[in-house]
């Protein structure tokens, strides 16, 4: 722009005005973008071991439901959220902890003892007792939590 325009006073002032305007715009615009997207980019708070309950409560070969409450801080509000986990063991030594959240669109699945499968009421997603896909629109098996047993108590890693 303006290669063959000579720089006179008028052009200079006009250019300077635009430059200062752009500077102010960027000075407010860039922080504004950071301000808007900031909380969305924040990582989840550090994960910690959450106690589920006694390992003895898990029935052999049947996914057993555990519910536990944790405190989560979202923005300026501290919520008490309930975490629901299905724990499965075949031999009483190796345990698997599965999330009860359907991998399709986030509804809550439940264990149907009669058919021996997990069923999601929203779009008929079906998982087997290990969380593997049986039928329906589900894209992947049920998510699993890292799990450990200490003094006969089950702990999962979450946050």
């Amino acid at each position: 722009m303006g290669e063959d325009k000579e720089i006179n006073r008028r052009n200079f002032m006009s250019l300077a005005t635009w430059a200062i305007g752009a500077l102010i715009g960027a000075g407010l615009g860039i922080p504004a973008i950071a301000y808007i997207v900031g909380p969305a980019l924040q990582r989840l708070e550090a994960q910690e071991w959450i106690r589920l309950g006694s390992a003895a409560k898990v029935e052999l070969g049947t996914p057993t439901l555990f519910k536990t409450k944790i405190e989560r801080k979202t923005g300026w509000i501290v919520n008490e959220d309930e975490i629901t986990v299905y724990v499965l063991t075949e031999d009483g030594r190796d345990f698997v902890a599965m999330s009860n959240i359907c991998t399709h669109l986030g509804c809550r699945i439940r264990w149907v003892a009669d058919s021996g499968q997990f069923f999601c009421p929203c779009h008929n997603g079906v998982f087997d007792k290990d969380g593997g896909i049986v039928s329906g629109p589900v894209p992947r098996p049920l998510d699993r939590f890292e799990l450990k047993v200490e003094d006969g108590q089950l702990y999962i890693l979450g946050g």
Partner: protein
Amino acid sequence: MATRIGNWLDERFGWRRVWEVIFLRKVPKVNWLYTLGSATLFVGINQMVTGILLTIYYVPSPDQAYDSVQYITTQVPAGWLIRGLHHWGASAMIVLSVLHMLRVIFYGAYKYPREMTWITGIISGIIVIGFGFTGYLLPWDQKAFWATTVGTRIAEVTPIIGPWILRIMRGGEELTAVTLARFFGVHVWFLPATLAVLILIHLYLVVRIGISAVPKRGE
């Protein structure tokens, strides 16, 4: 290429003419005091932008207002800056509005044919004070609460209709959640909508009539 797109658009929008009328109009030889109106407008735009941004996190409810403001100030990236600009901009707005008004008074710029520019300006000034009064309550800290308690009590002193004004302002006898909610509503909807209309008229008149020259001796 850019010129061709510009020409194509201008053929349909005709904005070059608008641009010329607004920004390339002839002005008398004036001094720096004549920039106070533009300065007020600039800070006003700053208030608008930062104010819109603040509503993304602010919650006008007694159990959350204070915490959400603290969250903006300490947790959100650049939140301190956005809130700071809005906070200090509010004071700048009052100062600049008053200086702008004083300039108009001392230069006699309110006279014929600019009476309507003056009147819309005065009403805008009252609205700016309304912004300050309602915005002061929103952080919901001790200062906010007691300042509004006192402010509404001052309004109560008005003869005859005073107690009624207090009740309207507070939304009841006491300063409560209802007060906070209505102050918020007035601060972000009623006042901005009214001010936008008044400023448009004000600026239209400035462009249409042109600004007054510095008065000469004996005028």
